[in-house]
């Protein structure tokens, strides 16, 4: 009795003590448990795809964004220079023409050197031939008058020459040349003998003026020729460049989709291998055993296009696909699941452990087969109809595809279990895509919207596996494209 009491008390003491004892495990313990239960959650593929997309976008923005027309810049600058020089010449002309007025001291001195002695009336009369000539060349009298309004009557004859040249927009160069090469009328007048009669003097002035106008015309012709040359050059270079560069464009797109799959049995394998002890002998249709539901998928990509003609474009690029579907299954105890592989007249069996059944388990559960893929679509786009703003297009591509993950559930050969066997899943595959879309031009960009169908003609699994899975995606594509100029 005493022993029992002692025993119970000892146990009770120990239990009381250790019941209150708590220890807290390191975080790494849970991470390891979680990893073992759910696998690695990191998806480097997603990161890589996103990084590639961002990188490509940045590259395009940096290197392919059309600059402000490299060739036309010099032309524009030449034109600008020409025009600016003409502007400058205008300004100079104005300055030169207004110089006598702006610098009355100089003109005054010139006039004083001329020593006009005739009366004002004779001067006015003498101005008549000059005015007549001015009328012939359609001189704007207002300009003359406005510019010469501040001038004295005795200066009208001379000062009118300045504004005339201004009104006719004489090139400063020609003007300067004229000024430099031969004596200006004023200078000429200054070297005139005082004894020359006023009429002769005016006639001479008129002839000089005519010579000046002829030079001006010649210069203007030269200028216009050079301008035409430059403009012709720039136009031709622009057209050549736009012809070559406007053919390329790029497009960013995203396409949410609904992912389905189609299961088929390889009857040839069944016939060939129905006799052996572990032969394949289906008693039912696989589609009656499997209960699967579509899932939402996604497609993101970047493509480059080359216009073969106004309506046909070649396209290529790369894209990231996520497609998935769910399977209704039942949790069971761990069971042995066999997968028969038939090839080269040989039957191999892969034995795996499965904890999911197609029927009859502890409880129902949902398995998700999710595929992450990288693909490189190559195809053609055709503009069926439309105008410059809105078009209807159809396109088709073939897409070599690389599967990034291979942890999908597949059926055991007896259709009883779902199990994972990465070796049975192909890493490389091919997909095809057809789409119709409306493209709408908005400024430099073009938006496109339309449905698309993506189909995987080859099975997800290796040919030796007797069940064929073909993936399908019905999606709606939204794209944004821009022509590279």
């Amino acid at each position: 009795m005493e022993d029992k009491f002692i025993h119970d008390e000892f146990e009770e003491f120990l239990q009381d003590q250790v019941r209150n004892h708590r220890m807290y495990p390191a975080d790494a313990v849970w991470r390891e448990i979680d990893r073992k239960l759910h696998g690695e959650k990191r998806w480097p593929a997603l990161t890589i795809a996103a990084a590639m997309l961002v990188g490509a976008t940045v590259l395009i923005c940096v290197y392919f964004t059309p600059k402000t027309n490299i060739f036309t810049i010099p032309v524009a600058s030449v034109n600008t220079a020409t025009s600016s020089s003409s502007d400058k010449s205008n300004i100079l002309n104005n300055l030169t023409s207004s110089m006598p007025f702006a610098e009355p001291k100089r003109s005054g001195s010139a006039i004083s050197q001329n020593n006009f002695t005739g009366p004002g009336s004779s001067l006015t009369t003498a101005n008549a031939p000059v005015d007549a000539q001015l009328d012939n060349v359609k001189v704007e009298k207002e300009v003359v008058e406005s510019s010469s309004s501040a001038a004295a009557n005795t200066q009208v004859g001379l000062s009118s020459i300045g504004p005339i040249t201004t009104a006719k927009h004489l090139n400063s160069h020609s003007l300067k040349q004229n000024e430099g090469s031969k004596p200006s009328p004023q200078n000429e007048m200054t070297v005139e003998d005082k004894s020359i009669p006023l009429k002769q003097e005016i006639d001479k002035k008129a002839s000089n003026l005519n010579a000046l106008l002829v030079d001006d015309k010649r210069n203007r012709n030269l200028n216009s020729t050079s301008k035409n040359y430059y403009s012709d050059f720039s136009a031709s270079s622009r057209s050549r460049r736009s012809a070559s560069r406007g053919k390329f464009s790029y497009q960013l797109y995203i396409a949410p989709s609904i992912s389905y799959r189609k299961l088929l049995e390889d009857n040839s394998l069944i016939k060939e291998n129905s006799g052996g002890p572990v032969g394949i002998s289906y008693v039912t249709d696989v589609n009656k055993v499997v209960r699967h539901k579509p899932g939402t998928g996604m497609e993101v990509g970047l493509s480059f296009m080359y216009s073969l003609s106004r309506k046909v474009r070649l396209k290529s690029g790369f894209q990231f696909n996520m497609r998935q579907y769910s399977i209704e299954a039942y949790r069971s105890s761990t069971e042995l699941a066999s997968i028969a592989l038939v090839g080269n007249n040989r039957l191999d069996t892969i034995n795996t452990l499965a904890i999911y059944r197609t029927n009859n388990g502890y409880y129902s559960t949902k398995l998700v087969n999710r595929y992450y893929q990288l693909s490189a679509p190559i195809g053609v786009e055709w503009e069926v109809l439309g105008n410059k703003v809105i078009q209807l297009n159809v396109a088709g591509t073939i897409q070599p595809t690389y599967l990034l993950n291979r942890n999908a559930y597949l059926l055991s050969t007896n259709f009883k279990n779902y199990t994972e066997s990465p070796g049975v899943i192909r890493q490389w595959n091919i997909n095809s895509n057809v789409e119709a879309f409306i493209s709408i031009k908005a400024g430099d960009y073009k938006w496109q919207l339309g449905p698309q169908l993506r189909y995987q003609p080859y099975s997800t699994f290796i040919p030796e596996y007797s069940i064929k899975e073909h993936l399908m995606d019905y999606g709606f594509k939204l794209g944004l494209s821009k022509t590279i100029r």
Partner: protein
Amino acid sequence: MTEEYIIAGCLHNEPAAQRELYNRFSPKMLSVCYRFALSREDAEDMLQEGFIKVFTQIHTFQNKGAFEGWIRRIIVHTCINFLKKYKKFNDSVDIDQAISAHVMEETIPSIMQAKQVTECIRYLPIGYRTVLNLYAIEGYSHREISSMLDIEESTSRSQYTRAKSMLENILVKKNIVEKPKPQFTLFAGVKK
């Protein structure tokens, strides 16, 4: 989150429910593992293995007893298997030699009494400790212990007796319990 909800979530393999279950029971279970293990690292390895079993075998729980008790049994079995698997029993002091093992007073940290008791238990040779843990704390019978450890039932009994005697000495040395008087019970003067 109620226990039923956690169990339902774990049955559906939901990470949130699993995390909740782990957070709720791991401190107690690590303490259990620690009493069996030679080091804390071993205890955490045992805990990890134990919880993976809990999550993968949760569908076998049939609501016929306490959920904590069910987890505890899995953890204890995991500890025993761990010790067997890594031959930890071989590394321990021989049972006969263990009686004369010298207890260094300063090796036991003077912290809370619960931890002191745990440390005192851990100071026992692993064979003694395992039997003591299973019998006195976890409540297994000597028959069950003999089956679990692949030893004779009588061996289990004798080991427990020796373990108990040794632990008494250690507890007295550590001044956790008073030295028993010859005619009275040992734990009459337990300091609580």
